[in-house]
């Protein structure tokens, strides 16, 4: 059994394994199994639909962290062309978690910024498990300010378990790096579209998450703290992560109902990792539509609307 299947994906995986086996048998022998295979295929789709139609919060959390989940660069290479990566915060180092650069989006120059997780163990370590340090946030801000100067729209892709909780990060003022981004992003005179593609956890996510539009993929999450962190503080036990995920309302549908996000982007049946190309195509279409709306506004109006949008959160 493939280790990259989540527990609730197992029945689907088992069925798919059976179909694969039948296909192999079918080519080896004279037997005509096409009808049988088609039946099982349909059954597999129905099963997937039924399982994915009622995921719990904790299951969505697992999807957002799925080992096969597409990461920022997977989308960047499919949605944008002519991507030139730029490096460095100009003070301390490059920052290996946040990637950014200038690219073209439907031929239009844009700034792309994303939090990148690693796939293999080596990459995971190199990408610090997706946990940005101050230099990551400062690099992102530098690139966003560059985009502002040349009137280039900004796309950010959020996918982080949180800002890095380490000694060196504190020494270089993690708090200030995050706060400065929130402060500056609120007034940047260029459109900003933020998309949560996987995990959106705490200030580390928000630090590239202040924009004119905040979008979420169907099986992504957004929360003030990871469910495990919340559980260990409020329940005094990380085992209560499931309850914490439910209580915090981490899923896109709950956040949309609260008016905190603008749009939920549907994923292919079974999740984005099942068909990265299709997911990228959907995402690209949504981004294009949202950008067009934002670019039809004057910059003054855009920035004022962004401010009012922030002020409206929790307004009495």
């Amino acid at each position, binding site marked *: 059994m493939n280790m990259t299947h989540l527990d609730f994906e197992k029945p689907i995986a088992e069925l798919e394994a059976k179909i694969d086996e039948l296909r192999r048998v079918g080519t080896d022998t004279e037997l005509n199994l096409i009808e049988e295979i088609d039946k099982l295929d349909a059954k597999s789709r129905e099963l997937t639909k039924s399982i994915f139609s009622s995921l719990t919060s904790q299951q969505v959390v697992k999807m957002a962290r799925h080992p096969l989940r597409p990461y920022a660069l997977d989308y960047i290479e499919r949605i944008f062309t002519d991507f030139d990566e730029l490096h460095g915060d100009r003070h301390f180092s490059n920052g290996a978690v946040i990637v950014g650069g200038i690219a073209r989006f439907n031929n239009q120059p844009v700034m792309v910024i994303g939090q990148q997780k690693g796939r293999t163990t080596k990459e995971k370590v190199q990408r610090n498990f997706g946990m940005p340090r101050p230099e990551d946030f400062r690099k992102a801000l530098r690139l966003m300010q560059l985009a502002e100067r040349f009137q280039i729209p900004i796309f950010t892709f959020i996918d982080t378990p949180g*800002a890095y*909780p*380490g*000694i060196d*990060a*504190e*020494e*270089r*003022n*993690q*708090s*200030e790096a*995050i*706060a*400065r981004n*929130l*402060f*500056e*992003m*609120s*007034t940047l005179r260029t459109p900003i579209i933020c998309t949560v593609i996987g995990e959106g956890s*705490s*200030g580390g996510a*928000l*630090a590239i*998450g*202040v924009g004119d539009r905040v979008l979420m993929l169907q099986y992504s999450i*957004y*929360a*003030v*703290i990871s469910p495990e*962190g*919340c559980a260990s*503080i*409020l*329940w005094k036990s990380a085992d*209560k992560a499931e*309850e*914490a995920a439910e*209580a*915090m*309302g*981490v899923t896109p549908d709950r*956040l949309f109902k*609260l008016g*905190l996000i603008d749009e939920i982007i549907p994923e292919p049946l079974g999740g984005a990792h099942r068909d990265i190309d299709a997911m990228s195509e959907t995402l690209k279409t949504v981004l294009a539509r949202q950008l067009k709306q934002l670019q039809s506004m004057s910059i003054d109006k855009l920035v004022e609307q*962004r*401010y009012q949008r*922030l*002020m409206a*959160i*929790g*307004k*009495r």
Partner: protein
Amino acid sequence: MSWFKKLLPSKIETATGGKKGVPEGIWSKCNKCSATLYRAELERNLNVCPKCGFHERLTGRTRLAIFLDEGSHEELASDVGPIDYLKFRDTKKYKDRIAAAQKKTGEKEALIVMAGTLKQMPVVACSFDFDFIGGSMSSAVGERFVHGVHTAIERKIPFICFSSSGGARMQESVISLMQMSKTSAALARLSAAKLPYFSILLDPTTGGVSASLATLGDVIIAEPEALIGFTGPRVIEQTVREKLPEGFQRSEFLLEHGAIDMIVDRRQMRDTVGRLIAKLTHQPQPIDDQNNEIRQ
């Protein structure tokens, strides 16, 4: 017992009755040096231990009372109270936690905002109350904060915030997370209006408050030995699995690493902030306080 008894003023003797031990409210023990202190004297000293200089925590309301000029207070946004958007429940209902915090502190929320004067200069000042759910930032706290900032912008006066908070309030999840961007955006407007923002960091200031409004001051001041950082020391220790260096994330550590402008003793806070505001806003130098008696 008898010779000591004779030394005490008779009214104290009456107050202690025949009870054993240190009587509540009259004597107090320093949390750091364990010195036994006369409560009234400690309060005259703004709850700073006269023996070792340890700064005891204050309530948000007392903080503003000892900071602003006497009788100058006008509370802002006091009607803005907490909302349980998520119907959140952990081992307790959020609603019940709010009720307990309100009963314990006598406050409606974890931030108190006041317009007043400092050395006759009009200012808006606010203070977190750590006793109210760890001074956590809820939507009400964010709303009160931006109300204060907007008042400062309207009246063209400086803004001051005393922070003491564990971070964003988990029970309001993304709504409280986004108060970080809301408060930061309001401060960007204050900055664009060329009005000074003084951020004063108290023990402890961590998490979402540290990573937003608290570190955005034009001038950042900390009280001595306050714990200040993004991630709390316990979580860092669990992550890096090593002992943290001595004094890590304390005010003195932050000063050394360039994160704050200065460390100021509570008893000099009025004088220091007053002097700085006067210079930044081109006003004559205010007169230093003659003594540090509590004003309320």
